[in-house]
């Protein structure tokens, strides 16, 4: 079976959830081989193995983190040229897109950005993408490989399939021409203790209807009551009632949680594009005509400042 190169992302807490999803999706195409930058700790290697990686390419290049994406793309290209994989898979996101696009040009290979599903027909890789602001599902077939795929987080349920991962250390030569974009500073996101927005199973999001920065707090409290992440519409982040990184929609994050609670969000097409793959949608809005109700599984026409506090109390009561 052919290898599938899977670009693994790790944090101090171990392998990120979207990477476990990638490994799971990769198994439909071939044998997952993870690529990691930095130290291949026992914890990371065993976690990658648990989700099916039979090989871990550990790329050591001490200064790689100082430069934007290009050295990583060169490393992936060099590994791909040697391993001849059926596909190269990364997680959709700023860095994943940067790497995938460059890799596709270098390998003159078809790219499937933001795939939600991948499959293999004979020797050709196909992927499903959500297009036209979520209105259609398009299946595309890669005509020349290896298929370069960026997968949407939360589109695949991560499932373990234990394998024993063999570590292979790779030395990659990164040319000076790959070092033209230097990261001057990198400020890690401050942990709120809440799940990451793109990985969360539950997202509670607020829109214009929250009314103010103080008004947005009820969104945070509801998210905490339900153990979810906090999201926001563009109006809220433009008004600085919440941080930009919480924005859900076309110019923010795309999420697909099991539960999405939209409070005070009218549901402009740009917002819906970022969340309409959510499995269950609950809407609270004063305006019965808000387009958001059209995609609601359960909707309450009412003031979020009355409905959400009552919900928080009910959740506390039921949890005992």
């Amino acid at each position, binding site marked *: 079976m052919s290898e599938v190169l899977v670009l693994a992302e790790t944090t101090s807490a171990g392998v990120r959830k979207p990477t476990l999803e990638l490994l799971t999706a990769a198994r439909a195409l071939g044998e997952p081989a993870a690529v990691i930058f930095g130290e291949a700790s026992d914890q990371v290697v065993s976690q990658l193995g648990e989700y099916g990686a039979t090989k871990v390419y550990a790329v050591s290049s001490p200064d790689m983190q100082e430069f934007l994406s290009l050295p990583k793309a060169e490393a992936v290209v060099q590994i791909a040229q040697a391993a001849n994989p059926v596909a190269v898979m990364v997680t959709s996101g700023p860095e994943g897109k*940067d790497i995938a696009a*460059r890799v596709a040009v270098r390998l003159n290979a078809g790219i499937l950005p933001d795939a939600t599903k991948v499959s293999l027909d004979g020797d050709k890789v196909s992927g499903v993408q*959500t297009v036209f602001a979520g209105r259609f*599902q398009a299946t595309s077939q890669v005509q020349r490989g290896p298929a370069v795929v960026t997968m949407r987080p939360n589109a695949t349920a991560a499932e373990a399939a234990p394998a024993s991962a063999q570590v292979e250390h790779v030395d990659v030569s990164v040319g000076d021409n790959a070092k033209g974009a230097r990261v001057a*500073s*990198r400020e890690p996101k401050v942990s709120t203790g809440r799940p990451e927005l793109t990985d969360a199973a539950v997202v509670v999001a607020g829109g214009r209807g929250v009314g103010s920065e103080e008004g947005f707090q009820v969104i945070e409290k509801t998210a905490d009551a339900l153990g979810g992440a906090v999201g926001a519409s563009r109006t809220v982040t433009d008004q600085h009632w919440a941080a930009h990184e919480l924005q859900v929609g*076309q110019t923010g994050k795309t999420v697909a949680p099991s539960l999405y609670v939209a409070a005070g969000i009218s549901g402009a097409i740009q917002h819906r594009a970022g969340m309409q793959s959510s499995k269950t949608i609950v809407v609270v809005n004063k305006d019965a005509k808000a387009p958001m*109700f059209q995609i*609601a599984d359960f909707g309450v026409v009412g003031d979020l400042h009355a409905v959400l506090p009552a919900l928080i109390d009910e959740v506390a009561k*039921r949890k005992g």
Partner: protein
Amino acid sequence: MKIVVLVKYVPEPTATWKFAPDLTVDRAGVEGRLSELDEYAVEQAAQLAEKGVASEVVFLTVGPAKATEGLRKALAIGGNTAVHVVDDAIHGSCALGTSLVLAKALEKTGYDLILTGMASTDAELSIVPQMVADRLGINQGTFAGELSVDGSSVTIRRDTDVATERVTIALPAIVSVTDQTGEARYPAFKAIMGAKKKPITTMSLADLGLSADQVGWAAASTKVVDVAPTPARTAGTIITDDGTGGSQVADFLADRGFI
């Protein structure tokens, strides 16, 4: 400093979009506009010209004849001239093909800094800028929420899932900007009229030294083989809050196993 802004003429987001029989986007049968996400790049270029950082701003698009409308809109916001690559053989190009056409056109126009939007509002791929960078052998800074330019470099702020980065990129470079950089101005009537006098140069594949078999549908590295409407969501239960709204939501969430 010469700035080239890559812009795309896209179907109006609120219009009903259709697929053509070859499963490409039917661009002829739908009203179009300058991609809203490219307007942010146009605005940044206009501001850099006003600050005296840019001595020349050129808008570049690849698209059907109607795409001229998008260039006129950009020229009403700012800039000096525009280039329109139009050729029937480009129809159906994949991202690799599109980036090849853009890169060849950029070699013709010349550039110090290339700006564009973070994505097109039709395909929403966010991969073409990096491909153009790779083909031209230049640096890139994508998803910039802020940018500043000095003589030899551009510095951007970008947010990834895990960090906020400040990146200094040596010129020449391509930078894609997000809506965080600020809304585009609304052009005044005088600017709209003035834009009509700004020159638009048309180029074909032959002008770029490309042959029809290098791009377009036949050369595409990916092909759409099936499209299906996203299954409609089944109509939900909508209630009006009578004081029990919160507990009814709780009932629903408990029923679905979320509490």
